[in-house]
């Protein structure tokens, strides 16, 4: 009982300091975010010092204390592929305790980049955007983890589909291990998630409309389609990764090439596209 309380008190102190910091530089959005987090932390602290008569809620409260970036990291590690905030939130809701709303992810990417540029490599991992294979710039609304190899973080033309299938396989394989321990609502969330994948993969869907879906069937069907696209997609990504290593500095390899505006006269910086 003592340990989580200590962790909480440290976290509360940290948050208060951060709010003061943010107030001095007048970052209103950040202040609002931190205040919300502080209130959550204080509520959890209250819940912990009073005798627990609703243990489930406490567990939830404590888990949501993980900073959003760590929650995202958990979900992305499970997915194993770059993903959009909505999918990340859905996976988090199905497999992990605590709340992660897509709106909390909005400011995350900017904060991560700022933190990296201030002190490169100070954190064990960063959440960064996926990179487009053609321009090596940040892909819209796709997050991944900096420790993944470049090949995994680059999005080629076939990659959205390949990543969708990768995620389907990962989720389908993780689902059975959870179903034993999960409570009713959690397993319903996993089922919903699986159903969404099953619908869009040929041969993965339920036998009859409205029938139950099976994780093994989904994984097998996803793997079958994955094999069709894998080789071409892998080549695209590998070639783009070679280019990225040659043309981009360390920060750009994580957060994407910054493109200067190329005006009509063509005097701007050349795009690092394929020759």
């Amino acid at each position, binding site marked *: 009982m003592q340990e989580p309380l200590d962790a909480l008190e440290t976290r509360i102190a940290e948050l208060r300091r951060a709010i003061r910091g943010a107030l001095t530089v007048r970052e209103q959005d950040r202040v609002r975010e931190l205040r919300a987090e502080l209130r959550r932390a204080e509520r959890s602290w209250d819940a912990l010092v009073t005798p627990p008569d609703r243990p489930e809620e406490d567990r939830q409260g404590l888990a949501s204390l993980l900073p959003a970036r760590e929650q995202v990291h958990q979900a992305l590690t499970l997915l194993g592929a770059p993903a959009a905030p909505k999918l990340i939130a859905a996976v988090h809701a199905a497999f992990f305790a605590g709340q992660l709303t897509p709106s909390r992810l909005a400011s995350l990417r900017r904060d991560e980049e700022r933190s990296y540029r201030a002190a490169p490599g100070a954190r064990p991992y960063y959440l960064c955007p996926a990179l*487009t294979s053609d321009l090596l*710039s940040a892909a819209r609304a796709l997050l991944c983890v900096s420790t993944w190899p470049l090949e995994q973080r680059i999005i080629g033309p076939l990659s*959205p*589909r390949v990543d969708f299938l990768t995620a389907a396989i990962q989720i389908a394989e993780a689902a059975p291990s959870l179903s034993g321990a999960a409570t009713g609502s959690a397993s319903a969330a996993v089922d919903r998630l699986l159903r969404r994948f099953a619908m869009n993969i040929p041969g993965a869907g339920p036998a009859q409309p409205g029938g139950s879906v099976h994780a093994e069937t989904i994984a097998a069907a996803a793997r079958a389609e994955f094999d069709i696209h894998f080789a071409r997609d892998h080549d695209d990504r590998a070639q783009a990764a070679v280019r990225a290593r040659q043309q981009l500095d360390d920060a750009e390899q994580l957060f994407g090439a910054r493109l200067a505006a*190329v005006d009509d006269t063509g005097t701007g910086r050349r795009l690092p596209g394929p020759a």
Partner: protein
Amino acid sequence: MTATDARLDSLRGSTEPLSFTARTIAALTANPGCVRRALMDAAGADKAALATHVGFPQRSGASQSPFALTRGGIFEAQVKASGGADLVRLLRDKLGLDLPEVSYSDLESVGGNTTKKVRYRRTRALLLRAARHPDQAGTLYDHPMLRLQVGGHLAYLEPDVVAFQIQGKFHVVEVKSFAVIDGQADEESVAAAAMQAAAYIVALQDMLTAESLSASAVSTDVILVTPENFSPQATATFIDVRKQVAILRRQLARMARIGVLLDELPSGLTFDLAPDPDGNYTRARGELASALEVVPARYQPRCLKTCELAGFCRDEARAAGALTVLGSVVRDDLGSLDSISTALALASGIRQPSADQADIARALRYVKSISDTLAGGTV
């Protein structure tokens, strides 16, 4: 700048010309006979601001409700999530798209640059490459940016998705959030979607023919993606829009000949709102209203749905007692008459019909007699 452009600019006045969207281009075809509308659109005048300034703020119809926009946005995001997973399923099911064809190109920004010009250039490069080398082409192009010449101005258009590799043709995919229930959809919504899609098709065809490629590479069958029945699940339907493409092409050609209409206007006529540096309009209301009245309009009740200025034109038509206020059916039935008062006078026999009005006058008197009997019978 040509003399026509200069004349149109002076007609619009000191404000920036409005740019066209697929919606406003589709609306061009709603009332092709209206000179007032044709001139306003060609000049890029802000019809909503003009209508508000002359005292007829437009309430609904021509602009989209924020709720509809949000709903549409959510449904579109759902259909396009995970590399267009829903879309890929629909195209495979309904159109026999091959399994390996899943390539997805996001054209909503080019390396973080979201300006229309840059996106247009990139779209053009990708789509032309696809047309020339179909074997290396992608399959789904998300939010490509197209360009269309409308009445001397360039309009940028953004279809939801352009799909390639289905029978070797480009297909415009239009994602709409109105439901198709048991195979039936709201007729007007479908008509509007078809007309918008026609604008994209015309823009695509023009892009290809400008590079001496065949316009037949663009399919005139639009793929309409909508929610199915009462579920959020998407379904796809084909719509043949050959007719809409022809209508739009004719209307665009007519706008290109806008000079003929301009010649008939008195010189010095302008719809200038004369905004001061703070953006307040300083043009005298009465003066602006009379300037608008100089240009003939052809009001019909349908205008309320497609034109921001409709309130003003309706008021004008009512004041003149014009038959068009009662809708196109009544107007067509009473073809040779021009005002409500004439029709009433003929019906009650106050006015003697001329030779060409004899038939219609007989019909009107007959209807009046039935109406009188009924009114008498209820007492």
